[in-house]
């Protein structure tokens, strides 16, 4: 009888897991390992370390998803996800980075056929280890047929990943409570990679961020400030980092208004008396200082794309997937919102924005190579 009661209590306890997962300020991310870890590549042999950041848009390519474009689609079909994921894996294999910072990775979301995209990429690229921190995890989102969702940030690495933290970022304050309950919980994912530490005193960290896109309050400022705080702490403690992600912020000196590029049929912006005046996520001057919000990062750390080139079209990293130049011409990219930084030095001219990947996501990957760590 006692065992029966215990079993019943255990089952009832299991059955009360939260419907929408909320996170504490600090938590431990999920760890992954490739089905076949390559014992040669998991050991650092010297030479440069190639790092790549990519918002991979949950492997749906330019699918006209309703949530981030003018699209109306919700659940991607099998062919779209299968083909896109295969080419993403192939692209990562060809570029051959040592460390990959990914944003918008799906783990078991209905919209991408419940695909475990972290495990797939580990099993189909030279990368061996991964950590994953959910941004959006719910049993069921009762809107537009989304259903179950688990999307997040991931760090993939050839080398074993040590202690990792999921650092919660502040939630938006410009949403009603019921919307916030089902909404994203953005975070910074910070992982130590012991294999790349030059000494026991000088640790090597990879830091991945996906900052808010659509907030019209000061949430973006809070996210960037927290990001800087984390990088500054690593730096001031004498450790090294490679870091980056989708900051959803334009570089200093960039155009700040993309409303008319992103406008959907039936919408009106920049019209007096019509609210909102600007399109959410397409305007980068919502609070004082937003246009220069990334200036401290450029002042303090080395950018994969040198400051002189950041506003050149060849380094644009994003345009919404349904953005059109003309009736039949897709606008592939029109702004830079993805970045890579380090407190070491990137190899001269190693920074590259892979615009040839424009069909694989609405963001372009950026890669760069760190100078030989053994010379540090």
């Amino acid at each position: 009888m006692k065992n029966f009661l215990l079993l019943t209590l255990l089952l009832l306890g299991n059955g009360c897991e939260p419907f929408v997962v909320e996170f504490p300020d600090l938590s431990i991310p999920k760890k992954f390992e490739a089905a076949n870890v390559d014992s040669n590549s998991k050991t650092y042999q010297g030479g440069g370390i190639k790092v790549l950041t990519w918002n991979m848009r949950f492997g749906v390519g330019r699918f006209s998803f309703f949530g981030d474009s003018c699209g109306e689609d919700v659940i991607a079909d099998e062919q779209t996800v299968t083909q896109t994921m295969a080419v993403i894996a192939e692209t990562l294999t060809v570029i051959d980075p040592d460390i990959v910072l990914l944003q918008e990775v799906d783990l078991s979301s209905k919209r991408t056929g419940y695909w475990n995209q972290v495990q797939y990429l580990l099993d189909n690229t030279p990368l061996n280890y991964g950590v994953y921190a959910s941004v959006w995890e719910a049993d069921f989102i009762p809107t537009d047929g989304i259903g179950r969702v688990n999307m997040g940030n991931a760090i993939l690495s050839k080398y074993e990943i040590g202690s990792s933290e999921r650092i919660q970022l502040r939630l938006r304050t410009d949403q009603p409570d019921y919307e916030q309950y089902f909404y994203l919980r953005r975070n910074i994912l910070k992982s130590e990679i012991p294999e790349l530490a030059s000494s026991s005193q000088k640790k090597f960290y990879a830091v991945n961020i996906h900052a808010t896109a659509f907030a019209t309050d000061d949430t973006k400022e809070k996210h960037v400030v927290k990001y800087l705080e984390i990088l500054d702490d690593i730096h001031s403690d004498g450790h090294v980092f490679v870091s980056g992600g989708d900051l959803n912020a334009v570089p200093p000196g960039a155009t700040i208004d993309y409303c008319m590029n992103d406008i959907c049929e039936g919408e009106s912006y920049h019209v007096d008396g019509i609210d909102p005046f600007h399109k959410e996520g397409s305007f980068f001057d919502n609070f004082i200082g937003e246009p220069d919000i990334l200036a401290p990062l450029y002042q303090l750390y080395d950018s994969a794309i040198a400051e002189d080139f950041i506003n050149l079209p060849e380094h644009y990293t994003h345009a919404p997937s349904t953005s059109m130049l003309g009736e039949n011409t897709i606008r592939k990219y029109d702004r830079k919102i993805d970045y890579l930084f380090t407190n070491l030095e990137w190899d001269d001219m190693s920074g590259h924005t892979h615009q040839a990947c424009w069909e694989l996501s609405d963001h372009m990957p950026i890669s760069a190579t760190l100078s030989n760590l053994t010379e540090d």
Partner: protein
Amino acid sequence: MVRALIFLTALLVSITRGGNANWDSHSAHIMPPKKWSVGIFHPIRYGIKDGLELSFHPGWSFVLPNASFKVPFSDFKSFNTATRLSFVYPTPLLNMLSRKGIGGIIDPNLTIPPMLGVSGSFIMSREVLRVNLTVKAGLDFGLVFGDLDVRSNIDLPIVYHRLEVFHNGWGLHSGLDIDKNLTKKIRIFMDVDLRFIPDTSKKGKRKNYTMRSGDYSIEHKMLLIWEYSSKFRIMTGYKLVSGDYPYGKQTRLLPYIPFVEQWLPLIELQWLR
């Protein structure tokens, strides 16, 4: 919010299907002629004539036309036996739930074709050591008259495996119910039901992209029933659902209120005339 209430109602309807030997739908006993029972979430059950019982959810009739017929079968080794044949036409409800914005449960780009669900069950009941025992087993068929997109599932406990019958074409169900008087006025009812969709996991687990995986669901319910009179009763309890889904295994205690992240005991009132 209205859709959330409809969903909650659907859960409660499922939870409260069960009860006592004389006027409960789970057992092999047939409602006597001209007698009827109804509950807040319970279907109307009506004895059409001696040996024929009809039950249906009147509140759902416009969006989820449904009817169930139960007829007695010859007794078998001191068991009362019966067969039940149920029909449900879920297309109008599912197309209502396929919508944009809040309350959209199915991708609005998908249209659900005409579909008819047919379930046949064989039910055996008897009293053993002052416990009313019912065992049942049966087949479910999902007849689809058109193209049913594989993405048009609803990945929620209780609902997923019932809809999966339409994707798979058929499924199996079985169950055991136990009903015992604790006092003269208070009874306890417990059941365990298994739903099984053959081959679903084999088909789904071969792929990375899988809308159809997870072949079983076990549903357990416990209710405390207060027989206030021979014509009215109140019941409270829970339902526990554990199953395999396209995203893996999950156990969920119901009814569960998302915003407050709390389980809430079910309360149901039923009347007999």
